[in-house]
């Protein structure tokens, strides 16, 4: 428990900053919803002129866009991007920070097995991400309810927001895998930004040019908010795939963490 507490406390301030920042971004975007809904006729004419492919790429669907849930399905992708980047940073950082500052020898020579170390670190960062998820999801759910006068499907709205949990854990476990595999990685933020943005744009491109591989390569497509808002349900194949990948990344990370030699300074 001592390792968990240490790791948890070490990243708590960062988590508060990340959580507040993501909530602020979320509130800013969500606040634009009622304006879009009020001006829907004007915006419709304007957006039609943008072309079908472009709108597809942005994940805009006219059947749902001018509803609170549909509008959130569009802007929710950006919140997902921020959460994905945060999770990747946490995953990588939890396992490279000691390698970067060379303090890993200190940790590895203590009476704690590598499995114990792995789970303590993994759970500490995972718990902090869960805290972010709880605050972000509840804030956005409440705020959307407060600012919209029109009636909408609250359970569907919650269904969209809840997708952030598996989405973050997908990025988190991918980050963990990178973290345990790298001998040292100084540019944790840059790598995480790159992973987040590449997947985000792949998802957009996938929507336009319909390359099947992109559907699988981008985690954002596993929980496509546009499709969920339209159909009211998750794509169970992708849900299974995402859970499988979370498990696979976690198990591989644990094996590598246990087997890997500590690189000589």
């Amino acid at each position, binding site marked *: 428990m001592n390792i968990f507490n240490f790791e948890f406390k070490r990243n708590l301030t960062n988590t508060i900053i990340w959580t507040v920042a993501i909530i602020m971004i979320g509130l800013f975007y969500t606040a634009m919803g009622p304006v879009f809904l009020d001006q829907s006729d004007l915006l419709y004419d304007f957006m039609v002129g943008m072309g079908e492919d472009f709108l597809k790429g942005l994940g805009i669907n006219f059947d749902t866009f001018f509803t609170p849930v549909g509008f959130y399905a569009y802007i929710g992708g950006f919140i997902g991007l921020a959460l994905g980047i945060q999770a990747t940073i946490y995953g990588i950082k939890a396992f490279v920070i000691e390698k970067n*500052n060379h303090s890993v*020898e200190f940790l590895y020579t203590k*009476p704690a097995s590598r499995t114990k170390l792995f789970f303590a670190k993994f759970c500490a960062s995972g718990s902090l991400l869960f805290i972010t998820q709880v605050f972000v999801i509840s804030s956005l759910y409440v705020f959307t309810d407060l600012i919209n006068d029109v009636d909408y499907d609250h359970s569907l709205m919650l269904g969209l927001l809840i997708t952030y949990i598996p989405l973050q854990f997908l990025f988190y476990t991918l980050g963990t895998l990178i973290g345990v595999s790298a001998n040292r990685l100084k540019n944790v933020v840059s790598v995480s930004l790159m992973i987040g943005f590449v997947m985000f744009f792949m998802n957009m491109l996938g929507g336009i040019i319909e390359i099947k591989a992109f559907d699988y390569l981008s985690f954002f497509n596993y929980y496509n908010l546009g499709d969920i808002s339209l159909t009211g349900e998750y794509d169970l194949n992708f849900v299974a795939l995402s859970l499988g990948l979370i498990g696979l990344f976690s198990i591989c990370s644990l094996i590598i963490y246990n087997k890997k030699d500590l690189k000589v300074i």
Partner: protein
Amino acid sequence: MNNIIEIKNLTKKYGKNRGVEDITLNIEKGEVYGFIGPNGAGKSTLIRTLLGLQKQTSGTATIFGEDIKDFSTKIADRVGYLPSEVYYYDGMKVKNLLKYSASFYDRDCSQRIIDLAKRLDLDLNRKIGDLSYGNKKKVGIVQALLHSPDLLILDEPTGGLDPLMQQTFFDILAEENERGVTIFLSSHILTEVQKVCNQVAIIKEGKIIEVNNVKEMSEDNYKKCSFELEADHDASEFANARGVTNFKQEGNDVSFIFKGDINYLISIIAKYQIKDLSIAEPSLEEIFMHFYK
């Protein structure tokens, strides 16, 4: 069980590169064991392998009878380790790092931390990142000793410590050894090995080339000979003589290290007219150089 560390034919390779090769070594309970060799000889590689920081390529090793392959918490609980380069969490205060270190052990280490910090003149309230290299080393010493381990593994332990602090550190080691602690110490500073160790192993290019008692090594086996020739003779016969190394002749002054039968040495010296003769115990450094030339 008398052997605290038992190493049998241990090899560690980094791909095709050599780490250590075919090391066999036993360290008994209560010994202060020196492990000497120049940089890159494989000292740290062996220590890191023993500590489970890297897996051996072949061979076996046990600490307290437990296989290092599964460097269990049971072993780690009884080992104190001081790395050659000390790195910790720079943003932490010394006392918080030591508290974190102590939290891994199922015993109260708080008084021991205070006592050791006092002896080493270490300010517990400073941030690690603000400390000099020597003070970081002191933090390393305290964190290696705070849980009163049964085995101390020290990799180049005195680097960064001033001579007074080195003496304090050696005093602490002597006290630990008195209470039965086994010490395995690697160094390339031979005088410190000579000062504190009773057994020594010399490592060259990843292989152990000599294991001996420090006292015996300098007293019984090796002799440092120097003499002054009466006339300007060529004494190069010594250079090729059995057991002679590090041969030097500058004018009439001749010096070398000799290992072997002293009567044989005297029989050769007797062929020359000499003014002065000195046969002394060499320092460990001179013996060490003998192995490396």
